[in-house]
């Protein structure tokens, strides 16, 4: 029986549970002996001219080894990331340390090198900056007016515009509803903050980095330092969470190479949580306007999404994200007329980057709120509106108005499964009873059906290397770079499935550019479908090579060999056999295979979520009671791992709907720059989740797998959001912006009572 599809416990866990793993700050590598601590001095203002930075007091503190400002750094600035309509203006390049102008609270303006961490804190406080304040631009609407420019040389705050609008879109619709929706800014907040260490060994630099993609970081570092590949090595050891925000090397980490060289000593940087919350890229941050139109019977005929993306102070991935939103604009629905437009603008806030789902949750949040707005306006049940407009199974492969081709899907089946498991009818009856009684605790039922694009950067593919060592154990090298997903376990299962070798004898290695020079990394739920498929194919190749070799050595026809009990045996003559160790020892060039696997196009996992909440109409407090889901990611290799990914995703999605928001005051001051103020969701606010299983395989890879890492987030956010609005919809409430805090819910109730 195949090991695939079974509940195999993680191979990663014993080490993490006994010594706590080895994150960058845990490294005790001799190359880092005597490492100096790196502490950044950050801007206290959102927008200002730097008129002077006085470092003299810091220099006088014993234990301070170096103090640097932009004038000391001879590295080129980081060019802007790709935008939604070509590259953003080149003038928006980002220096390592603010040069001339600061553009957000938390932007690094200076850096100190000290003998200890505590001295770094002391020294950073002694660096004083003189600033001439400029008007801050915090709101995306203000930014669009271009009255105050962040980069005067660019002549505009707009980093890109894509899409067009057609005035006739809603002609012929009996009902048209429109609404502005804030998809608020949230923090990725991995438990391990950004951490890096760096050492030069003669002419070569090694950067240890808490990151999701060592190889792309290596490439960025090479470009920034002007060094060839053989002189740059990036290692990503255990990584304490990423959620998309640890993609790419950021300025603060890249500068370590410069600092280590100047100091002629290794250096280490561990940011504080407060720094993490103001300086690591944030996610989401879209202002959306949805317009939906159709017939009174609940048939949707036209849908429009207008997006203003807050890019933050410098165009990083935030300048690109709305393109993913536009790709997925119509979600799971077959709507005759669909259009979208996106504009992206810089503001005096922390730069925006990828965060779990990256542009796709924003698309689903918009269309799923729109479906509920349409349901409320037509008086048709929200489940019925969805049922009526879903893409049907016979329409696959389905070409979307966003320009995508959905591979496979069973959208109605997923929705029906969730409705039945939750007993939707009974929930509606209970809701009606509470409404009739005028109960203080009203029930809210929220639905969301979603489809997401996974491995959107599929054309880059991923490579897998499988090698039998002379002792019969297996080395697997992969470019995907886990940070909690359990790659060691799932990839070892794929190899064991082909080679019949015990999981304990299979080692999975990742995150070292010297061992694995050319790969992509972990993002966009691409790992199993690309990295896993590559490892699978490599294992198949090794198996075939082994079969040939065994046949030669035994001098028998290949067809007479079988792989049984972990060795190659002659069929019917089990005493004539060769073990994997014997084969590896006797293979002249070793027994290994390298496969680079690419899909023709991305895959599209899908699902439906149903959330149940209770709202206290006297206080606005939301009590989150139940969450029932189907998340169909094709074939499941290890149910334990996929369930874990779904749980985590649901929690993060619900957190955005209920609690989390990074906010700024009118001057651009962050309002929640630590975990005491940022409403990180805890065990106490969440229920246990009810997961249903469905597997609709994709045809795009040999395993039939899609991606699962972001699914929970995409479905949960609108399901929980819709549930909160639904709880008070009988009072006339049609929309409450996220997060649906007690204050916001209470205010919405007051307006209608």
């Amino acid at each position: 029986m195949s090991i695939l599809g079974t509940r195999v416990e993680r191979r990663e866990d014993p080490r993490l549970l006994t010594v706590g793993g080895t994150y960058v700050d845990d490294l005790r590598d001799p190359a880092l002996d005597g490492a100096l601590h790196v502490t950044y001095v950050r801007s206290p203002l959102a927008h200002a001219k730097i008129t002077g930075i006085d470092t003299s007091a810091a220099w006088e503190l014993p234990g301070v080894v170096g103090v640097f400002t932009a004038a000391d750094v001879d590295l080129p600035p980081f060019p802007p990331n790709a935008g939604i309509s070509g590259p953003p203006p080149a003038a928006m390049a980002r220096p390592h340390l603010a040069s001339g102008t600061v553009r957000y609270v938390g932007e690094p303006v200076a850096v100190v090198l000290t003998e200890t961490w505590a001295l770094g804190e002391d020294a950073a406080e002694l660096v004083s900056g003189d600033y001439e304040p400029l008007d801050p631009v915090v709101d995306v609407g203000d930014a669009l007016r271009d009255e105050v420019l962040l980069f005067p040389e660019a002549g505009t705050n707009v980093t890109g515009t894509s899409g067009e609008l057609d005035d006739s879109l809603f002609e012929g619709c009996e009902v048209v509803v429109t609404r502005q929706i804030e998809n608020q800014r949230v923090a990725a907040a991995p438990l391990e903050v950004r951490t890096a260490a760096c050492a030069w060994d003669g002419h070569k630099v090694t950067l240890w980095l808490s990151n999701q993609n060592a190889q792309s970081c290596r490439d960025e570092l090479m470009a920034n330092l002007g060094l060839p590949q053989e002189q740059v090595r990036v290692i990503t050891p255990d990584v304490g969470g990423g959620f998309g925000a640890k993609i790419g090397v950021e300025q603060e980490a890249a500068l370590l190479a410069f600092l280590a060289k100047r100091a002629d000593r290794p250096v280490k940087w561990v940011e504080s949580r407060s720094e993490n919350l103001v300086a690591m890229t944030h996610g989401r941050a879209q202002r959306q306007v949805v317009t939906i139109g159709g017939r009174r019977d609940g048939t949707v005929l036209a849908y429009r999404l207008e997006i203003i993306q807050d890019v933050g102070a410098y165009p990083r991935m935030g300048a690109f994200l709305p393109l993913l939103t536009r790709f997925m604009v119509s979600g799971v629905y077959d709507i005759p007329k669909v259009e979208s437009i996106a504009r992206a603008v810089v503001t005096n806030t922390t730069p925006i980057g990828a965060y779990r789902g990256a542009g796709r949750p924003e698309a689903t949040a918009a269309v799923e709120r729109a479906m509920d707005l349409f349901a409320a306006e037509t008086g048709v049940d929200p489940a019925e509106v969805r049922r009526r407009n879903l893409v049907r199974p016979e329409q696959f492969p389905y070409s979307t108005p966003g320009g995508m081709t959905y591979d496979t899907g069973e959208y109605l089946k997923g929705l029906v499964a969730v409705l039945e498991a939750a007993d939707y009818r009974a929930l509606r009856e209970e809701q009606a009873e509470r409404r009739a009684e005028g109960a203080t605790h009203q029930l809210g039922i929220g639905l969301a059906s979603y489809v997401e694009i996974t491995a959107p950067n599929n054309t880059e593919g991923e490579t897998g290397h499988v090698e039998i060592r002379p002792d019969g154990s297996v080395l697997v090298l992969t470019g995907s770079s886990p940070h909690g997903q359990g790659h060691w376990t799932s990839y070892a299962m794929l190899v064991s499935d082909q080679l019949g070798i015990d999981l304990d004898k299979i080692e999975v290695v990742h995150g070292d550019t010297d061992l694995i020079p050319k790969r992509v990394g972990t993002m966009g739920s691409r790992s199993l479908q690309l990295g896993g498929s590559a490892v699978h194919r490599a294992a198949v190749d090794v198996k075939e090579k082994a079969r040939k070799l065994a046949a030669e050595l035994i001098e028998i026809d290949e067809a007479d060999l079988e792989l049984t009990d972990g060795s190659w045996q002659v069929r019917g003559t089990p005493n004539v056999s060769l073990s994997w160790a014997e084969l590896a020892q006797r293979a002249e060039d070793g027994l290994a295979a390298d496969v680079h696997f690419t899909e023709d196009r991305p895959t599209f996992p899908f699902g439906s979520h149903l959330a149940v909440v209770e709202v206290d109409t006297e206080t606005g407090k939301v009590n989150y009671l139940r969450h029932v889901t189907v998340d169909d990611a094709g074939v499941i290799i290890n149910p334990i791992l996929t369930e874990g990914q779904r749980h985590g995703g649901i929690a993060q999605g619900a957190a955005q709907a209920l609690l989390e928001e990074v906010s700024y005051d009118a001057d651009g001051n962050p309002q929640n720059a630590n975990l005491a103020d940022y409403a990180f969701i805890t065990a106490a606010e969440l229920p246990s989740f009810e997961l249903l299983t469905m597997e609709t395989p994709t045809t795009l890879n040999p395993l039939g797998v899609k991606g699962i890492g972001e699914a929970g987030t995409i479905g949960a956010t609108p399901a929980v959001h819709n549930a909160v609005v639904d709880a008070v919809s009988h009072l006339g409430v049609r929309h409450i912006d996220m997060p649906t805090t007690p204050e916001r819910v209470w205010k919405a109730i007051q307006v209608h009572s």
Partner: protein
Amino acid sequence: MQVSINVNGEQRSHEVEDRTLLVQYLRDDCGLTGTNIGCDTTSCGACTVLLDGESVKSCTVLAAQADGHEVTTIEGLADGEELHPMQRAFQQKHGLQCGFCTPGMVMASVSLVEENPNLTEAEVRAGLEGNLCRCTGYHNIVEAVLTAAKEKSGAAE
């Protein structure tokens, strides 16, 4: 100043700065890096250890305050090769993903079950409110704690 602390059954003495936090002492002076730091405000619980058997956030305790006391960290929980029942439950129930919050989460859970092995789900959720996890959605952590609690209460009967 000089501190003398029994860490995981081993008596250790070090000269430390007065302001040294217990978590820094454990990580930097004892080389026990299993205990992690996740915030600056005693909010995340990643640094939770047992001080004389009770869970504390070691970023809120000075090394000096632990002088003469016993500290247990994640490294001291297993009995040789044998995982502690809480560690085993976390693996069985997939109660960890990236693993960064895990040492603190496990130590807090050990203390929780030690106080009351007849925990309800709601009590586990309330009891772990001071320990943040970004990966698991807490679902499997709660399952793991309930499983370990059941095992303990069963063993006590």
